[in-house]
């Protein structure tokens, strides 16, 4: 009896809790606080935060592997997050399903009306690769222990696209997944703070006041054919980006084709919501003290911020160049939207534009580079998977 009482005491969190676990529970609570009180991408950061708390409860076994006897019968079941992580994240299924849902939510209309804004979505990916160099430098200098695969996975934070970052990290650097996902979603939430100073620093008041011509009407047929064109181009030129872009285009085709609205509706609601809950819990499961409480995490968080800033700057500078050579005026602010972070970055461009000129509505113009940024970072992800894996 006393033995049992002692057992029960030995089972408690108080007895078992290690310092690292306590810290990580606090980190989890911090993410929950940021999600609820500060509105930082709550759809992801709330489940990630809860996942981080749960996985660090000592003895709760959320990441316990199931045990089978020799005959294949289950001796003890695995933990919830074990099944979620290995079933949905390690396999890449959850990010792909979410990407399909995001595709079903995306309107390519503004981009199709002004295809040259795709260049802005390309330029902003410079943040990704500059960060890779940064991580490689830290690794080569021996300051942090980053391989090329790690550097690539860290760079993708600059893509400002959560599912892409999780997909790439799960394939190239699973042990860094937690830190990378947290960095990606945190910085996406910080877009309204990070971007404006950079945008103002790189542009003059006149440039920010530039009004753009109204976008032409885009027909239904264009919207339907576009995802098919993208899929074919990806198939021809970058198959390693096909999982991400193929599912994205599938979702978008369901949205635009008009004959499978019930599937599109489910992809945008029930399905993406279900997967988001589990994706968050699964990402949170990687927020263990061993994986998170080290110098590399600091590196990842700093490099992520650098990536965002460089991406924003590259987008703005590219827009300035394009404005020089374009027949129609291009407001450089919309270049910042090229980092993706849909639709936040486009709203930021709109807001900074309004500051300069009360009549200057850039939102729709910024949506073009914004969704182009999603394609751009998926392409960058494909190159990385091919280059590092191949």
């Amino acid at each position, binding site marked *: 009896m006393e033995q049992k009482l002692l057992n029960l005491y030995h089972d408690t969190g108080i007895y078992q809790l290690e310092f690292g676990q306590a810290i990580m529970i606090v980190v989890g609570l911090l993410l929950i606080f940021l999600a609820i009180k500060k509105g930082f991408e709550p759809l992801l950061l709330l489940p990630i935060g809860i996942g981080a708390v749960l996985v660090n409860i000592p003895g709760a076994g959320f990441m316990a592997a199931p045990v089978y006897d020799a005959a294949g019968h289950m001796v003890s079941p695995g933990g919830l997050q074990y099944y979620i992580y290995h079933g949905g994240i390690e396999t890449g299924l959850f990010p792909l399903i979410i990407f399909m849902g995001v595709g079903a939510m995306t309107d390519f209309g503004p981009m199709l009306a002004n*295809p040259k804004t*795709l260049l802005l979505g390309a330029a902003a990916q410079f943040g990704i690769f500059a960060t890779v160099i940064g991580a*490689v430098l830290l690794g080569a200098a021996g300051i942090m222990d980053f391989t090329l695969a790690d550097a690539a996975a860290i760079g993708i934070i600059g893509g400002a696209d959560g599912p892409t970052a999780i997909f790439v990290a799960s394939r190239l650097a699973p042990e860094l997944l937690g830190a990378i996902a947290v960095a990606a979603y945190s910085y996406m939430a910080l877009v309204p703070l990070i971007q404006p100073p950079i945008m103002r620093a790189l542009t003059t008041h006149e440039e920010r006041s530039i009004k753009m011509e109204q976008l032409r009407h885009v027909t239904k047929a264009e919207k339907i054919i576009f995802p098919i064109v993208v899929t074919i181009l990806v198939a021809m030129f970058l198959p390693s980006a096909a999982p991400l872009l193929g599912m994205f285009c599938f979702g978008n085709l369901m949205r635009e*084709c*008009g004959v499978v609205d019930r599937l599109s509706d489910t992809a945008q609601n029930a399905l993406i919501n279900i997967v988001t809950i589990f994706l968050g819990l699964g990402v949170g499961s990687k927020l263990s003290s061993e994986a998170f409480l080290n110098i590399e995490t600091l590196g990842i968080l700093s490099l992520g911020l650098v990536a965002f800033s460089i991406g924003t700057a590259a987008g703005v500078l590219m827009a300035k160049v394009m404005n020089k050579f374009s027949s129609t005026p291009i407001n450089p602010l919309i270049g910042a939207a090229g980092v993706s972070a849909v639709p936040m970055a486009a709203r930021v461009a709109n807001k900074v534009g309004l500051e300069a000129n009360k009549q200057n509505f850039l939102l729709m113009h910024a949506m073009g580079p914004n969704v182009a940024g999603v394609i751009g970072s998926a392409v960058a992800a494909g190159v990385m998977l091919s280059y590092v894996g191949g």
Partner: protein
Amino acid sequence: MNNLMSDGFGLMLLGMGFVFTFLCLLIVSTTYMSKLINRYFPEAAPVAKKPMAAPTAGASSASASATDPKIAAAITAAIHQHRNR
């Protein structure tokens, strides 16, 4: 060491090169696609939204009859709000 750095620069060059190449290709294709579509199929009666038929099965149809447009508008707004809640 050196190897890691050169790999990093290689990835950057190749990566940015490829991203630009691919997105330029996409600009060309998209522009061409739009031209083609708008010349040969100029907003040809956009594919109508059909009432959804269930995969293989009965259900549904009986597409609802007309209702007072003002009320209908209010409802649509409400449902939309509700959906996005």
